[in-house]
């Protein structure tokens, strides 16, 4: 289980597509510790520091990690930590702290669209500010994933932004569409062009045997290669991830923070009946998808995507449907090509469960 702690509503940026309702609420260290208590069942769990901008609350992070480490020493649980940050407050001291305590850092960066979308409250772009941060971060943590959001306004920059981020040194690029945006039919041809350009780029890197993880293609390839696993890994609302608001209320997803989705709080625990009801609602197969040929490979079960796009987790996002219909054949064609070329890196990455270990061994061996 992953426990995502919304440490604060506050943020030092004003990204154009941000879905977080800005406020002044901060999570107290006590609330954060109660979350660690909730997760202390002897198993392995992730504690994710999220926001707003979580680096506005460093003290709470440090107290929470210390608390979790103490519990781990007593055998009450195993915790791994992750922080998702916009990077503008990331400094050498925190990076050193993150390395020492094995806190995984994920950076939000929109590539060439950074200055257009990820701006400060005065509207100034942040790309320049992030340049030294990225260098410092990748020097210490070369496997840092970067998370990029694509909007209709930045769609034409999609492929070039991925290339730009690759050029900066990122090798794990997670791309998300802004599903709350006004996507229209006329955007679709451009979306297809961008994915085709990305497929060429991916193939080029694969041919050179350069490591590269690009989430849209990896996810779609995996939906064929690991069919069974993927079905069990899809969105299981409230069962694999819980989000905790600054006031300690618990929600089933980071984007479903709001009264109707509250399933408990850190003091009284989880309301199982409510969690189960939401899970069942989300699990029901949508009628429109019943005899769709790619139903099992599609992300239509993602509750937050449907909520963002339609206002309800029970309704399907037409853009998501169109997106999947565009992406799937391009990803399959790319995989077919790499398979027919017997590309060794592709084979290892897709068909060897031990690939992460082998890849790490390679990186650590001179």
């Amino acid at each position, binding site marked *: 289980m992953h426990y995502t702690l919304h440490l604060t509503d506050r943020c030092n940026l004003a990204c154009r597509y941000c879905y977080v309702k800005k406020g002044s609420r901060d999570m107290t260290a006590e609330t954060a510790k109660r979350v660690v208590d909730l997760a202390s069942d002897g198993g392995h769990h992730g504690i994710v520091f999220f926001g707003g901008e979580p680096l506005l609350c460093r003290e709470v992070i440090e107290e929470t990690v210390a608390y979790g480490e103490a519990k781990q020493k007593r055998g009450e649980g195993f915790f791994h930590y992750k922080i998702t940050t916009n990077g503008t407050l990331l400094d050498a001291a925190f990076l050193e702290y993150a390395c020492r305590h094995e806190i995984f850092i994920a950076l939000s960066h929109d590539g060439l669209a950074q200055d257009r979308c990820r701006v400060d409250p005065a509207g100034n772009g942040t790309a320049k500010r992030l340049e030294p941060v990225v260098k410092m971060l990748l020097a210490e943590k070369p496997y840092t994933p970067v998370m990029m959001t694509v909007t209709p306004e930045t769609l034409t920059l999609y492929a070039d932004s991925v290339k730009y981020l690759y050029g900066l040194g990122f090798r794990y690029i997670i791309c998300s569409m802004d599903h709350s945006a006004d*996507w*229209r*039919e006329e955007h679709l041809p451009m979306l297809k062009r961008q994915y085709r350009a990305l497929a060429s780029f991916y193939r080029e890197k694969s*041919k050179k*045997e350069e490591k590269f993880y690009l989430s849209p293609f990896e996810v779609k*390839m995996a939906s*064929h*290669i*690991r*069919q*069974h*696993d993927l079905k069990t890994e899809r969105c299981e609302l409230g069962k694999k991830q819980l989000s905790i608001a600054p006031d300690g209320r618990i929600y089933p997803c980071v984007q479903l923070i709001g009264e109707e989705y509250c399933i408990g709080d850190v003091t009284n625990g989880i309301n199982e009946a409510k969690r189960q009801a939401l899970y069942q609602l989300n699990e029901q197969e949508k009628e*429109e*998808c019943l*005899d*769709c*040929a*790619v139903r099992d490979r599609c992300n239509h079960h993602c509750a937050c995507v449907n909520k963002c796009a339609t206002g309800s987790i029970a309704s*399907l996002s*037409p*853009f998501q*449907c*169109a997106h999947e*219909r565009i992406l*799937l054949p391009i990803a*399959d064609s790319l*995989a*077919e*090509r*790499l*398979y*027919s*070329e*017997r590309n*060794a*890196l592709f*084979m*290892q990455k*897709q*068909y*060897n*469960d*031990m690939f992460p*270990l*082998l890849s790490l*061994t*390679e990186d650590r*061996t001179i």
Partner: protein
Amino acid sequence: MQIEKVRSYPTPRYPTAVQFHETEKITRYMPRRWRAKRLVGQVLLITAVTGLCSCTVPTSGENAGKQTEAVRKTDLSVPLFVHGEGRGSFGCDSVLPPVYLSEDEAAQVIRETAREYGVDFSGKGTVESRKLPYTNVYGVEMDDTYKGTLTLDGYDSVLGIGYEYVSQKDVSDWHKDTNIMSTVETFDMKGTAERLTNAVKNTAVFYDPGMDYSTMPEWHSEDDWERAVDEYHARQKERMTEDLRAQVVDFLEWLRGQGVI
């Protein structure tokens, strides 16, 4: 925008993890960058022997057999093996006489080298494609293609694999007219080979490695010029032959890596 059901979708022509591990060994696929690091090979071997590499999820359903069949029918896409710049030109800007390897000269090198690996390219074969490349020798960037049948330069009927050598003559023959003409003719054998490689299956594409302009010997008189040109020609041919042989050897080693030979 509307929700649209996908009525039918072809079974992808790459295997699921279960299908892969039924028919293939992951240890056969060793990225080049891993080969230089012995420890990586050892870890791969240990994880393979202990079964950690494999996917253990059982497969079921009526499509399982169909999918395996679809994958087995997958054709080989042979990569292009690059040795030589693969370009040459003739015209007012060209200061040295161009040297090319003819189809016959290339066939001798390719077939001899292939025989050493047990591959017999003496047969005849064709390949069909919807994207055979047009070329242009006047420097116009050309990405036009056509649907047609290419008669291969050699074919091994046992393996079902052929080869096509992209010569200067091929680039000239596949030229598509545009309104632009020039006094310089440029022949991009490598670029054409790259495009052809992407258009055909079960076919190795080799190309004329082209000249190396830097090796023209000095000359001091008109007689000396002829000697210098002859020497230049001989040296170029020798180097080009070696580059072509390297392309063929790379292909044959790759073919061996696929378990085809």
